[in-house]
């Protein structure tokens, strides 16, 4: 057979070339892919830039539109209500002038009368005439001017006169005006400034007489609210919710075994936290009742701020245009973001329109004083007015807490379930656990039996061998005995292992039960101790006195503006 050799090197070389070519193409494809990605990124940047530009342009246009529109609105305001601004400025000026006694009464009279001519429908104009007439003891003109102001806006005039009289220390007049003001309020929907006025009244800013008289009006409010069939229930519920809101956070770190093994540790934790509320409430109410009343300077300022805003704020007629002006202003402030501006406007309006019932106001003042800026005197007053509901609501809170205490502590150790009567049954539990574990051990050991198979087979072989070949019987017996011994030894080893593991489980389980019972006892003791503090709260609530709530004190006025 001749040797035939085929030279494959050209093919190999070509293949190498193809491979190189493929690699080259692959690199080119990769380069194109990179270029494509770069192009895409650039395009995305361009789109993003374009979108940013469009957004910025929209915002800029909104700002521009708002700026143009706000000018129009202001012009309209100025045209329609410009004279109101003059009245407001002059009123502020007259109040300032009165504070420092730098302007002659005649000048003030002329200014007042001029205001009256300038603002034909505005309540503040006759109120100003009344003020200037009152300053120079012109009783007849004062009466006529006040009547006119009240005809134009009874509510604002009443509040204005009450606040002006307070500034000038005319406590007798304050008493009547304030009384009238509170009587005009709807106890189910109080205005925002009532909280400030109530605070001032409780602190005696308006004088003793005003505080006493107004307290009786406030009692009438409550009486009016109490006429509603659901009022008592709602009011109690309000207090219950307010008290529960002060519940401290659960802290179960002292009970690691309960946390790990008790099936209801969350309920236990909640129960303890609810019981700890007693201490919180004891401190809260004791602070209100025992703390000395000091008139905060900010309160006098706050009362004067109400006068200032009455004098400087817009009248109802102007509201539509003023609101539009404010909305446009917000668009400018929010850099053209119309949605954000609208949200702010809604929030502002809601805060402005917010009205609460007197009963809610009392609860807020006593329970969340920081949130509503209630002074200690108002907190005392609120508690005094609500004593009946507070006491009743607290009784319900305590009963709720006690009713929610779990009857026992269910737990599981090594798949054995039981419920502890808060650790008092430790011995019984350990004994029951022991019994269960002994039963389990017996069951486990029962299934391990020495197999007689080897002995039986050896006996049969030995018996057969005895007749055929005697030494075979001996060999069979030895083998059979060896097999049996091996099986027996293995079983013994298993039994010992099971017993050892069981002993460990029993010891560990007992340790857990003992620890759990100890923590249960400790928990129950702590719960009882916290629960017992409810008596302290009840005693503190018993010390609430509505009469002591009104701390009376006069003060001097603050300079206007």
């Amino acid at each position, binding site marked *: 057979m001749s040797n035939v050799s085929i030279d494959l090197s050209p093919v190999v070389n070509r293949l190498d070339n193809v491979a190189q070519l493929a690699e080259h193409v692959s690199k080119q494809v990769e380069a194109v892919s990179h270029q494509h990605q770069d192009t895409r990124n650039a395009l995305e940047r361009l789109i993003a830039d374009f979108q940013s530009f469009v957004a910025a342009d929209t915002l800029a246009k909104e700002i521009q539109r708002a700026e143009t529109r706000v000018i129009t609105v202001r012009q309209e305001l100025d045209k329609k209500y410009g004279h109101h601004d003059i009245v407001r400025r002059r009123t502020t000026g007259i109040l300032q002038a009165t504070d420092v006694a730098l302007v002659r009464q005649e000048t003030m009279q002329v200014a007042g009368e001029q205001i009256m001519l300038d603002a034909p429908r505005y309540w503040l104009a006759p109120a100003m005439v009344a003020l200037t007439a009152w300053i120079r003891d012109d009783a007849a003109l004062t009466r006529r001017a006040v009547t006119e102001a009240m005809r134009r806006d009874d509510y604002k005039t009443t509040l204005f006169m009450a606040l002006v009289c307070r500034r000038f220390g005319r406590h007798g007049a304050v008493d009547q005006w304030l009384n009238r003001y509170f009587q005009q309020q709807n106890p189910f929907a109080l205005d925002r400034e009532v909280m400030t006025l109530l605070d001032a009244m409780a602190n005696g800013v308006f004088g003793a007489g005003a505080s006493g008289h107004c307290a009786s009006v406030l009692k009438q409010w409550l009486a009016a609210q109490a006429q509603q*069939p*659901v009022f*008592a229930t709602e009011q109690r519920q309000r207090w219950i919710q307010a008290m529960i809101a002060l519940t401290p956070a659960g802290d179960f770190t002292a009970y690691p075994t309960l946390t790990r093994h008790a099936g209801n540790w969350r309920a236990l934790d909640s129960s303890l936290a609810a019981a700890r509320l007693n201490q919180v409430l004891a401190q809260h109410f004791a602070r209100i009742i025992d703390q000395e009343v000091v008139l905060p300077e900010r309160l006098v300022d706050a009362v004067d701020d109400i006068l200032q805003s009455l004098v400087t704020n817009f009248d109802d007629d102007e509201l539509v245009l003023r609101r539009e002006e404010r909305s446009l202003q917000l668009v400018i402030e929010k850099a053209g973001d119309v949605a954000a501006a609208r949200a702010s406007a809604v929030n502002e309006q809601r805060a402005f329109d917010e009205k609460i019932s007197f009963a809610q106001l009392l609860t807020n003042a006593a329970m969340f004083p920081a949130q509503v800026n209630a002074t200690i005197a108002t907190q005392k007053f609120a508690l005094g007015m609500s004593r009946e509901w507070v006491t009743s609501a607290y*009784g*319900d809170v305590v*009963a709720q807490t*006690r009713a*929610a*205490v779990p009857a026992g502590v269910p737990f599981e150790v090594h798949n054995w379930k039981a419920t502890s009567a808060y650790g008092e049954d430790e011995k019984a539990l350990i004994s029951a656990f022991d019994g269960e574990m002994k039963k389990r051990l017996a069951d486990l050991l029962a299934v391990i039996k020495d197999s007689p198979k080897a002995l039986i087979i050896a006996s049969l072989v030995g018996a057969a061998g005895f007749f055929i070949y005697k030494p075979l019987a001996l060999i069979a017996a030895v083998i059979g005995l060896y097999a049996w011994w091996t099986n027996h030894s293995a079983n013994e080893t298993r039994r010992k292992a099971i017993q050892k593991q069981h002993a460990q489980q029993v010891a560990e389980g007992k340790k857990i039960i003992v620890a759990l019972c100890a923590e249960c006892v400790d928990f129950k003791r702590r719960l009882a101790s916290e629960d017992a503090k409810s008596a302290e709260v009840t005693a503190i609530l018993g010390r609430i006195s509505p009469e002591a709530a009104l701390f009376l004190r006069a003060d001097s006025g603050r300079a206007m503006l």
Partner: protein
Amino acid sequence: MARPIIGLTPVQSTAHGLQPTQRSLVDKRRALELLRVKRSNRYLEAMSRLDAGAHLADRAGIEGLIQVFIQEFPELGRGHAPLGIAARCLLGPPYEVHICDFAGTILEHFPRGRPMPAIFERARSLALHPGYACVEVYSDHLVAIGLDGQVAIIESRSDV
């Protein structure tokens, strides 16, 4: 095992007449407000005699207890009477709480660990608390009566 005191077989009929048609015209809210009134000494004494069982030896005994409630709340009448009373048991271990089921006209003592009927079980913790003389059990609320007759109300969730 509960220890029956009266030995009466619980009857299915509502012995104190709690049929809806016989309920008084007082609405639920108003009834709850009325139930807040401090209980009289007479009422507290009647409830405290539950353990003795002497006056409850027959159905008439429990009817007498219902009458005490009606006299305490004439405006409410028997239509608003509680389903029963749960209170701390003074018989000693193993008994810890007893219930007087007005509908079943039965007084039953329960040892620790043995649950009471569900409608009464939710009152167990309160009944065991030394601060309360007894607990009036209603279908949707509990009224805990303090040792001095003061009242606290726990409105239950509707899942009971």
